[in-house]
């Protein structure tokens, strides 16, 4: 089977969920604006909240999507006689492409918001330039995606006990990194690393997670 067909497989597997996500984002944003404009008593917060919610929705979707990848897509592809190497490399590539696309859509909504919301008397902080915003959110999303892939793979591959231990290890790692990089607490801007300068280290962490993930899948059996 060709690389192209493997990527087509991922596209077929992803597209409905990805489209649903983008439609949900669109309607949630409209709903928030409408509520803010016509029911100010509901207190939906300031305009920047709107973008925070977008990012949280994308993050939740990504987490669910990656859990599905580990628990369903892996046995599905292996069941269609795909090698583990081909599964893993194309899954990572599909994940990167998804994160780039989701980052693009979120950044686009942010840009649109910046130009439309002030006309509705909603002030939006200027934030980062479009490309920087897109890049930083994509990296943040990738980090979450890879950590989730690792944890869910651990559960699938190693069972509940070792899987739980891996979650504890993950929490420990987060605390460790947070001590050195307080900015990756993801609090100032929900779902996004605030500092561009933090991203090179995060990219190294992402690469390491990708390597550890391969070690998990390299000889992973499919249940008989």
């Amino acid at each position, binding site marked *: *089977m060709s690389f192209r*067909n*493997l990527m*087509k*497989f991922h596209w*077929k*597997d992803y597209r409905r969920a990805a489209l649903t996500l983008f439609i949900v984002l669109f309607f949630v944003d409209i709903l928030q604006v409408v509520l803010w404009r016509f029911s100010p008593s509901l207190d939906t917060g300031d305009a920047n909240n709107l973008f925070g919610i977008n990012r949280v929705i994308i993050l939740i979707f990504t987490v669910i999507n990656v859990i599905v990848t580990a628990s*369903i*897509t*892996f*046995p*599905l*592809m*292996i*069941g*269609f*006689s*795909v*090698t*583990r*190497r*081909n599964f893993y490399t194309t899954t990572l590539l599909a994940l990167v492409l998804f994160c780039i696309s989701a980052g693009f859509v979120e950044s686009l909504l942010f840009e649109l918001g910046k130009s439309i919301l002030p006309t509705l008397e909603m002030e939006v902080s200027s934030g980062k330039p479009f490309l920087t915003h897109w890049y930083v959110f994509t990296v943040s999303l990738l980090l979450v995606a890879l950590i989730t892939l690792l944890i869910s793979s651990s559960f699938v591959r190693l069972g509940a006990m070792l899987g739980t231990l891996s979650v504890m290890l993950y929490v420990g790692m987060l605390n460790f990194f947070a001590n050195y990089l307080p900015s990756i607490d993801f609090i100032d801007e929900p779902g996004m690393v605030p500092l561009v300068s933090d991203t090179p280290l995060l990219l190294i962490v992402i690469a390491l997670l990708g390597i550890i993930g391969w070690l998990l899948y390299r*000889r992973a*059996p*499919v*249940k*008989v």
Partner: protein
Amino acid sequence: MTDLRVESSEDVHSPTGMELFRVSKVYRGGQGVYDASLVLNSQAIHGMIGANGSGKSTLLALMAGQQFPDSGQVLYGGIPVHEHAHTLSNICLVKTHERSWENYTLKQIFSFAALLYPNWDAGTAEELMDKFQLNAKKKYKNLSRGGQSMAGIIKGLASRASLTLLDEPVIGLDASMREIFYKALLEDYSRFPRTFVMTTHLIDESENLFEYITYVKKGNVAYHGPAEDLSAKASYLTGASSLLEDLTKDQRTLHVERLGGRLLLALEDLSDPSERKYWLDKGIELSPIPLQKLFVYMTQRDAANNEGGGKR
């Protein structure tokens, strides 16, 4: 019984077909496959029989590269199957139940298969969907047990993989659907000869399909050879109890039935012509044992031998 390890050791590295060489895969609890060797002739329909838990599904999963052996080699066309993309694309394993298919419609499942099997035949898939009266828009999890088996059969036949492994493909199928399957298998096989390995417990109705039989016993290959040879040696002996009583204690005796003053014995091996003549001269009736019956007797004998908690 033929000991395959001896029989197949010479040609285990032949460049064609599926070859397992001293393969072991042991699960927690002791089940699995132990030091099994097997060479499957290409372009033939092989039947794989054995009691529940004897290791048939594990053997198929090892052949399909879905499980890694603890030791030993699994080769197809002389190449290790595990993680070899080209080799694997020529192998299709159909499981009894595909858990990962549950949330997909049949249309989605077969569109995935069309992308991932290089020789996928969409025409065959559609034809079989019609024959089995399956609705492509239905999700796998909403199909009956028989419907799920049909979906697996379609994957197996339409994949046109040169080695197709069918793990109990007729589970849940009614008699008429099983007939449709057997007919479709033979038609497809005659048009596109390739290697099929099929496990089943319904030996009576499928034995005519099989050119070769592999009998798996407690994680090992106890017999592999032409289907007719397995039952050819075995024989029923029917006659007066006084004549046959001594044979009831013979190691070859698989089954004993007392009918008043008469005895019916099932002997695993009565191939010696002089012995056959001896019993015939004494007025003992000899008759062949159907494969299904022989399998049942062998399984019961193995289970009885296993009693007492002995490990494999």
